[in-house]
C-alpha cells in the first residue's frame, strides 16, 4: 500500500483529524475520571485530618474555614471536628517554606483548650534519614499534649524548648515554625 502524499492539504488535514480524535477521546476519559480524582483528593485530606483530631460526626472538609495570616496574603485552612454539636478539635493545615528543601505542610490537631493533640506531616521534600526523622515519635512527641503558651515552639538553638534532630536543625526549625504558626493562628481566629 502506498503511503499518502505529503501535500499541504493532506498534512494539515491529517494533523487536524488526529488531534481532533485525540482531544475528543481525552475529553471523554477526563469526564470519566473526574469524580474518582476528586474523591481521591478528598480522601487524602481526610486521612490527615483523621490522624490528628478525635472522632467526629461532621464533615470537616465541608465545614472548612480559612483564617488570614498577618501578612494579609495567605491564610490557613481550619477543619473543625464536631461531635454532638460541640467542637472537639480543629485540624489546622499549616505550612512553611523554610524547610531544608523548601515547602513543609503540616496538619496540626488543636483541642479546644489550646493544646496540641497530634501533628501529621502532609507534604515535604526533606532529606531521607535526616529531615524525615521529624515524623518520628521521638521528635514529634515534644509537641504533643503540651500547652503552647507554656512551651516555646522553637529549637533550643533559637532560644526555645524543642530538642532539634541531630544534623537536621533546619528541618526541625521548619517543623516548629509551622506548628507555631498553626497555634498562633488558631488563637487568633479559631472557633473554639
Amino acid at each position: 500500500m502506498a503511503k499518502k502524499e505529503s501535500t499541504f492539504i493532506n498534512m494539515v488535514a491529517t494533523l487536524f483529524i488526529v488531534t481532533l480524535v485525540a482531544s475528543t477521546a481525552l475529553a471523554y476519559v477526563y469526564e470519566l475520571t473526574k469524580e474518582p480524582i476528586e474523591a481521591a483528593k478528598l480522601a487524602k485530606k481526610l486521612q490527615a485530618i483523621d490522624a490528628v483530631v478525635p472522632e467526629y460526626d461532621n464533615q470537616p472538609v465541608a465545614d472548612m474555614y480559612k483564617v488570614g495570616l498577618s501578612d494579609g496574603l495567605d491564610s490557613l485552612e481550619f477543619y473543625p471536628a464536631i461531635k454532638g454539636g460541640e467542637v472537639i478539635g480543629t485540624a489546622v493545615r499549616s505550612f512553611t517554606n523554610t524547610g531544608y528543601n523548601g515547602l513543609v505542610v503540616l496538619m496540626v490537631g488543636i483541642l479546644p483548650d489550646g493544646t496540641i493533640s497530634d501533628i501529621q506531616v502532609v507534604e515535604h521534600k526533606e532529606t531521607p534519614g535526616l529531615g524525615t526523622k521529624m515524623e518520628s515519635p521521638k521528635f514529634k512527641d515534644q509537641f504533643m499534649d503540651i500547652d503552647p503558651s507554656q512551651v516555646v515552639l522553637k529549637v533550643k538553638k533559637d532560644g526555645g524548648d524543642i530538642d532539634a534532630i541531630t544534623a537536621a536543625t533546619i528541618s526541625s526549625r521548619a517543623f516548629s515554625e509551622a506548628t507555631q504558626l498553626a497555634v498562633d493562628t488558631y488563637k487568633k481566629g479559631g472557633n473554639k
Partner: protein
Amino acid sequence: MDYIIIVVSAIFINNILLAQFLGVCPFLGVSNKLSTSFGMTGAVMFVMTLATIVTYLINHYILAPYNIGFLQTISYILVIASLVQMVEIILKKVSPALFQALGVYLPLITTNCAILGVAILVIQKEYNLIESVVFAVSNAIGFGLALVLFAGIREHMDLAEVPAGIRGVPAALIVAGLLSLAFMGFTGIV
C-alpha cells in the same frame, strides 16, 4: 530578591540534571566533547525559554480558563516539537558547522525531558510569567553547567585507565553520581 533564590536554586541546589534527573539522555550522548556541550546548551536554552513562555501563555489563556487542563501534555509537546523544527531550520542557515556537530542530537531536544519538565514545573510552582522565564533560563544554565563540567571530566577520562568492566557508560554514570553528590553540598546556601 525572590529571583535570586530562583536562579541559585535552579542552577545549584535543584540542578535540573544532577538532582531532578531531567535531560539525562542528551547528557550522556553529547557530553564527550566540550565543544558540542556548549552548542547543545545554547540550543537548549533557546528552546527551553521560548517553550516555557509559549506553554505558559497557552496554559494561562486557553487551558485554564476553559478547564481543558487535560490537554496540557498534548499541546505542550506539540509546541516543543515545532520550536525544535524552527531551531533546526535557523541553525542550518546561520551555523551549518554547529548544525553538523550536533547531528542527530538536535531533533532529540524534542524528547529532552528537561524542556517539557521545566514547562510543567512552572505551572506546578505557580510562577508568574517573569518568574517562569527566569526559572527557564536558570535551569538551562544549570543544565549547561552540569553538561560542561561533565564533558571536561569525560575528556580526561578518555585518556585515563578505567577498569574494563565499567569502561564507557557505566563509568560515566558513576562520575555523574559523584558530581551529583558534590552538588548536594549546595543545599542550604539559601
